[in-house]
């Protein structure tokens, strides 16, 4: 398990490959990854940059808790999370979640669980700079949609 919170631009797929190179070879079968990217529109406003605030220490702790829960709940080999903080520009990656498993269904379910619960529990806050000025995002647009698998 590896959790990284970073203020540097990161290449999600380079991270997946680098981490996978350290896993025992020939064992995994499948990896499911989710990469969330900064969009240049939100609620109809053009967004030029975003600032992602976090609570150092608590943020990492809660992402790790979600990953540990996934490792207990599903038959998966490993999980990797990388999350940006600080100033983010359109098309930059915000978050990567990757899960490795011998079983495709377990990889899908656990990856989805980690991104969904990370979004609910890990302390991050988005502030967008739009043509109308800066504003804190009050809620994630997808929170209303009950897309949490159980």
């Amino acid at each position: 398990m590896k959790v990284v919170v970073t203020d540097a631009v990161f290449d999600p797929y380079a991270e997946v490959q680098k981490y996978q190179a350290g896993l025992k070879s020939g064992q995994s079968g499948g990896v499911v990854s989710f990469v969330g990217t900064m969009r240049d529109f939100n609620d109809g406003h053009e967004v030029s940059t975003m600032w992602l605030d976090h609570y150092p220490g608590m943020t990492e702790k809660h992402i790790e808790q979600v990953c540990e829960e996934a490792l207990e709940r599903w038959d998966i080999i490993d999980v990797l999370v990388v999350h940006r903080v600080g100033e983010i520009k359109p098309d930059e990656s915000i978050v990567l979640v990757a899960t490795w498993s011998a079983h495709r269904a377990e990889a899908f379910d656990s990856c989805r669980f980690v991104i969904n619960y990370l979004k609910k529990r890990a302390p991050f806050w988005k502030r967008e700079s739009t043509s109308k000025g800066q504003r804190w995002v009050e809620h994630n647009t997808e929170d209303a949609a009950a897309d949490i698998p159980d």
Partner: protein
Amino acid sequence: MKIKVKFFASLRDRIGRAEESLDIEGSSVTVADVWSKVAEEPIPDGVLIAVNMEYTDGSHSLSEGDEVAFFPPVTGG
């Protein structure tokens, strides 16, 4: 009782500071008591509370050296 208080995101802007250290009289102090030292109004609806980086609520009893954080709903990922 020495308590460290932190504010994040829109709540930090509203309170006007990122953190402060309080020294509160008495042996039985709750999170709600801490809030009443830093703001006039009651804890706004939807504000989340963490003590020592774990989620909790206003009734939580504090101990010497605890870190209390107040913040709006999270919007990561």
